[in-house]
């Protein structure tokens, strides 16, 4: 969280596996597009795994614990999973799942960050080898970027 942690490699613990990222939105289209945007903006090289978990399994708007858990398992490489959420039931569902303790991979973490900017920051940091703390910090720091 310190200013010195600004470089992309901050927090790289030397582990070879990247942190995974899950993007939870009420809308499948939003989650998928933000994942695509983050991949596009994160640039070349090997990217850390990122998966969308948007909407309900039947394609409606809402939050699905089933899709969240599946995405988290899909990106888990053993280095932790950063979960970014949009609002309302997405926040509450992830919090409730973390409290439950056995449906999400161990060392999954709800990251307090703006959804779009946080996703980009998280993916860049995770792809550069940042550990879960560094990924979470980078995503949260996106709140500090003022637009006017």
């Amino acid at each position, binding site marked *: 969280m310190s200013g010195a942690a600004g470089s992309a490699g901050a927090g790289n613990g030397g582990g070879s596996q990247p942190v995974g990222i899950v993007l939870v939105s009420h809308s499948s289209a939003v989650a998928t597009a933000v994942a695509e945007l983050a991949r596009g903006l994160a640039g070349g090289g090997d990217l850390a795994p990122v998966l969308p978990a948007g909407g309900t399994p039947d394609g409606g708007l*809402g*939050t699905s614990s089933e899709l969240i858990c599946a995405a988290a398992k899909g990106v888990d490489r053993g280095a932790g999973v950063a979960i970014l959420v949009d609002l309302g*039931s997405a926040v*509450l569902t992830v*919090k*409730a799942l973390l*409290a439950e303790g056995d449906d999400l991979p161990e060392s999954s973490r709800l990251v307090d960050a703006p959804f779009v900017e946080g996703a980009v920051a998280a993916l860049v940091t995770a792809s550069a080898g940042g550990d879960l703390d560094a990924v979470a910090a980078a995503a949260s720091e996106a709140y500090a970027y003022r637009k006017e």
Partner: protein
Amino acid sequence: MGIDMTGTFGADFLVRWLAAVAEAVDREAEHLTELDSAIGDADHGANLTRGFAAVTETLAKEPPATPGAVLASAGRQLISTVGGASGPLYGTLLRRTGKTLGDGDRVTREQLAEALGSGVAAVAQLGGAQVGDKTMLDALVPAVQGLRESFAAARAAAEEGALATVPLRARKGRASYLGERSVGHQDPGATSSALLFAALDETALAEAGRTEGAS
């Protein structure tokens, strides 16, 4: 075996309660959705109907042995099937209540009130809300207080609490975006919470009838 001579309840009583809740939310689904369309996203009735239907189905298929396990199972089902904020909120309420009850075979009303108190505290923590924010807590908190006295008192307190949300301004969830425009509408979450305690009272009354009939 619902209520025995000493006034304790077994797992079967909790299963009947949740079945009664499923019936009540199904019956009131249209009303809940109507309230939710005024200040929310008009899915409360459908979401709870789907959630509690899944709860009763699972309980019928794999009936847990203890009251605590019944509520923990119901909580898990709600979190995984509802799809809206009411899923993790009601899911957390029941799961935490079940956890607090532990693995005893039978519980008293007082123990249930105590455990529900911990469940309500977990809901408040999860949603970051407090009484007066125009949420389900406005019904749940007085209901748990009432339950220390009787099932009927819990029901009355919950219904009163739900009605008392009408003049409140929403401070949590989607309704809070409406600011002053949320005033004048009854909160859908407080309304469904009152259904839970109405169903609990009805289940207890039916149970007392069964016991008398049997003795």
